């Protein structure tokens, strides 16, 4: 066949490819709509109920205003407790997460079986929601901020450990080779070769986890693990809505401030 017929053939296959892609998009869209309907049915979500619920939300919001300012002195201690819980909950895990991640990473771990076992442990620590950890620890050691710190620590060891070992495994093997070529032993290879390379990613993950823990520490009080979440829960349960909204405003402020600080540190350090 001459070259004109061949060119025509090319055009037809392009159009067919487009039609195939459109079909795939349409099917995906249909599938998503189907899932949407199924999930709406299961959760009882529908627009009339939404519109019917709006007056209730509005009424609750009205009952929450104006925010109660007389409770502010009482809220100082829980606020400080919340901030402290988040700090400790991010820093204490560092001592555990770094060595554990070195074990869990396949390029620095002693043996693949040990590495995989460590990964399972880390995964369990981070998948169990921190609220559940807090609940279990409160049942074990009592109320207060201490179980809250422990809960955050456990969860963060898992979370940071995972980010860290992923960063360690992503180190360019050429860097490791270069340091090994100077005759350094295993420890020096890790200290001078691997860790400095992953440090930016590790610090970024740690800062991100600090933000996450800050938000988490505001709610741990729900199960009695201290902080402003406790004051918030009590206010809701006692129908003291104006006090509840004061707590909410403080929470938003804490989170916003920490987010800003974190963004600033991120720009400075990384």
């Amino acid at each position: 066949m001459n070259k004109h017929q061949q060119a025509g053939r090319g055009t037809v296959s392009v159009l067919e490819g487009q039609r195939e892609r459109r079909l795939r998009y349409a099917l995906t869209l249909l599938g998503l709509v189907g899932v949407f309907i199924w999930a709406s049915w299961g959760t009882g979500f529908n627009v009339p109920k939404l519109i019917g619920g709006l007056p209730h939300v509005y009424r609750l919001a009205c009952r929450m205003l104006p925010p109660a300012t007389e409770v502010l002195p009482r809220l100082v201690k829980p606020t400080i407790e919340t901030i402290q819980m988040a700090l400790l909950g991010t820093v204490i895990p560092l001592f555990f997460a770094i060595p554990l991640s070195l074990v869990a990473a396949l390029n620095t771990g002693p043996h693949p079986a040990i590495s995989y076992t460590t990964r399972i442990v880390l995964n369990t620590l981070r998948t169990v929601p921190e609220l559940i950890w807090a609940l279990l620890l409160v049942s074990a050691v009592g109320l207060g901020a201490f179980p809250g710190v422990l809960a955050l620590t456990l969860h963060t060891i898992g979370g940071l450990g995972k980010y860290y070992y992923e960063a360690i495994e992503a180190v360019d093997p050429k860097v490791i080779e270069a340091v090994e070529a100077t005759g350094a032993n295993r420890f020096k290879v890790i200290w001078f070769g691997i860790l400095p390379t992953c440090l930016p990613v590790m610090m970024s993950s740690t800062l991100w986890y600090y933000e996450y823990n800050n938000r988490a520490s505001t709610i741990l009080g729900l199960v009695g693990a201290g902080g402003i979440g406790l004051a918030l829960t009590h206010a809701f349960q006692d129908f003291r809505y104006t006090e509840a909204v004061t707590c909410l405003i403080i929470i938003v402020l804490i989170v916003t401030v920490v987010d800003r600080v974190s963004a600033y540190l991120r720009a400075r350090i990384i």
Partner: protein
Amino acid sequence: MVTAAIAVYWWSARGTEVSLAEFTRGLPAIWDMLGHMFPPDPSILGELWWPMIETLQIGILSTMIAAIIAFPVAFLAAANTSPHGIVYFSVRIILNVFRGVSEIIWGLFFVVAIGLGSFAGVLALVVFGVGAIGKLLSEALESVDPGPVEAIRSTGASNWRVFLYGVFPQVIPLYLSYCLYYWDHNTRQAAILGFVGAGGIGYTLFVSLSMYEFEQATFQILVMVLLITAIDRFCWFLRRRII
């Protein structure tokens, strides 16, 4: 600098009563508790199927609705696409409030406002999701590369086409990535939202713990972990296929 940091942590430890002594005092209690919790009791499995499905549904539905709402809202919150400075600032503040307040607190709020059940959970996660996805998407919009946009505009294309072929292709991968991430996150949170009454496995866990049935509770936590891990893996798989 280092001394200041150590001082801050010391102060934190004092404030939260964290100390090695406290920890060692608590260890026997933790051990005792573990004894009550194991072996996990699987007899409750039959009652868990529906709450599990409910948790999945809450996670999916809330992510979908949040994703749909967040898309236009993000345009209002991005400096280069926002119609007016006032709109920009107020939408930004609203999004910040939506995502600053933890989802569980939103859950508490909506349960108090419209009653127990998964509907409150969906609303809570939608509010949070709009804030989170909206903020991330607005940042993505602000960092769009002006090069391709200018190139298409110079061909004389209408504004709509400039958007469709210039801006859209740049933000869609990020948008899908955020949606997938928050689907994972929302399913995780949906599992806990039941704790404040918003439906799903969290609620059955709450009931078990209130009745001191610790072995059943352990089993439910196990199920929760498996569910979350499964969604995690599925999201990872979808991510590789789509992005």
